[in-house]
């Protein structure tokens, strides 16, 4: 029951975003061909407007857009003659997805390890070092870290390519730049979660029963401490996604993030509209899946509508 309700909230959210972006995009005065109006004959302009449905009244344009959206057609691009928004997304998605997933995996694996080690070493040197690393990692924005990584790892020491995309080596520096802050956040989150769990009575019971320390840490500690961290994957995905905008720009990676930023500068409204809806949908679906899996993993949380 909760899942169905949650699913409808998700659909409504996507619809609200679509409508909002549509209204915002069309509230701009003038049309995209205003600058061509002096050079091109009126008939050509008419044809162009008709191609992008700009000759229809706004409500009709809106309904047409919704109709196409339901059929997963995001419409043509204004800047690019040959590629429509769907093709742009299909072209850019593999690079962005690889970058995002690789960073997510790096952030989760190393963040969790760091958090667990810090918690087990509570108030020891390792704990202080990991938390110092974590707080520095959170403080440095990725767009400051990325140029530094390029300067040292690519230019001075020549370990990795400077920029661009192609081999796996190209993905290393951008993934590191993107993953550092989320890694630090995961580490801090896991540490405090782990500290709380290790203080619980069932840990003391397990210890009193004479179970091995490793067994207690892995079976009772980590497993329970992971549950709140799962709920954090949603915001983490949002963080990584917006992070790809700057990372793809800095490293000149042909991903959707770069197309999105480019389309902002070209004022290519169908592309802005399409990519925004695409990004939002991916994020909202991620949040939905995380929410559902969180409730399935932790049997203490009932799948009811009154969640919090």
């Amino acid at each position, binding site marked *: 029951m909760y899942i169905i309700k949650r699913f409808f909230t998700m659909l409504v959210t996507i619809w609200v975003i679509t409508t909002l*972006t549509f209204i*915002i995009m069309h509230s701009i005065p003038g049309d995209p061909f205003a600058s061509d109006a002096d050079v091109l004959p009126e008939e050509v302009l008419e044809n162009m407007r008709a191609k992008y449905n700009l000759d229809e009244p706004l409500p009709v344009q809106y309904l047409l857009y919704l109709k196409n959206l339901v059929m997963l057609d995001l419409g043509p691009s204004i800047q690019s003659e040959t590629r429509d928004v769907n093709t742009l997304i299909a072209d850019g998605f593999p690079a962005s997805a690889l970058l995002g997933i690789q960073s997510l995996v790096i952030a989760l694996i190393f963040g969790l390890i760091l958090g667990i080690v810090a918690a087990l070493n509570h108030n020891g040197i390792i704990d202080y070092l990991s938390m110092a690393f974590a707080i520095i990692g959170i403080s440095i924005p990725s*767009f*400051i870290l990325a140029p*530094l990584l390029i300067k040292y790892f690519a*230019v001075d020491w020549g370990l990795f390519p400077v920029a661009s995309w192609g081999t796996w080596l190209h993905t290393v520096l951008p993934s590191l730049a993107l993953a550092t802050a989320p890694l630090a956040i995961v580490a801090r989150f896991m540490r405090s979660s782990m500290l709380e769990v290790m203080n619980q009575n069932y840990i003391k019971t397990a210890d009193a029963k004479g179970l091995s320390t490793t067994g207690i840490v892995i079976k009772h500690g980590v497993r329970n401490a992971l549950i709140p961290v799962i709920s954090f994957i949603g915001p983490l995905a949002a963080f990584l996604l*917006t992070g790809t905008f700057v990372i793809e720009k800095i490293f000149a990676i042909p991903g959707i993030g770069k197309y999105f930023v480019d389309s902002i500068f070209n004022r290519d409204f169908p592309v802005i509209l399409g990519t925004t809806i695409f990004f939002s949908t991916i994020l909202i679906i991620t949040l939905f899946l995380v929410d559902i899996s969180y409730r399935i993993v932790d049997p203490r949380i009932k799948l009811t509508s009154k969640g919090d």
Partner: protein
Amino acid sequence: MIERSNDNVLFRPIDRSRFNQEELVRPSLSQWKETVLKIVKNKLAVLGLILLVVITFFAIFGPHMVSYSYSDQSLTTRNLPPSSDHWFGTDALGRDMWARTWYGARISLTIGVAAAVIDLILGLLVGGISGYMAGRGKIGDRVDSILMRIVEILYGIPYLLVVILLLVVMEPGLWTIILALSITGWVGMARIVRGQILQLKEQEYVSAAQKLGTPHRKIIWRHLFPNMIGIIIVNLTFTIPQAIFAESFLSFIGLGVQAPIASWGTMANDALGVILTGQWWRLFFPGFLISLTMFAFNVFGDGLQDALDPQAKD
């Protein structure tokens, strides 16, 4: 049958006359004094606070310490490294980096504080109404549920995407950024405030006050507000750096404040092209200061959170 005897080895009565039960172990402190004492003990939080004061000081007075303005261009002083004349060096247009960096600090702090204050006001208003109306008859529940549906939907919309979208269509400028940042930013605060109020409403002292006929306004100001203020301040110390980060992020991709106005994000973006030519000061000063500000807010916020947590008694 359990045998009761005085020679039980495990449980023996204590001679209570040895203890003075009325003695105060520690001085009685108001919540505020205790919070301040706890923060002062936390060295990292004190460091964060000092850094914030220093950064604010230079944001206010820094640009006036040199004779150059943030926008003065000069062909003869292009790309100079830091020297006694230009303390932070100059950029590709010969502008003084010291003046630009601290002017940027001013912009970043203004945006951070203004966005956070607007978030706070809207969040208090919506969260307060929603939490107060909940459980107050049919109409009250309806108001609460409508407000919460709106909050829920807005919460699901990716924050930076909406901000980017708004900035694309609005006139660029300081207030546009503040407006764009606060249009969805208040949602988190509203959720916190509502949750707090729902929790506090259940407390015995609130229902006692209600039963004694205390007027609503007095309950709000005497019982609800003082108990919420800690969590609200902690939340502020996290929303301000978030807004500063968002601003520098947006300026970095070209949607923030427009030239010639300086901001840490635009300066970092300008420095991208010259990072390989050895002009380290172009990226170092704005980059270091963004990171330092983030660091200061984070450690101070953490310290404040620990200090206000009543369960963390030492």
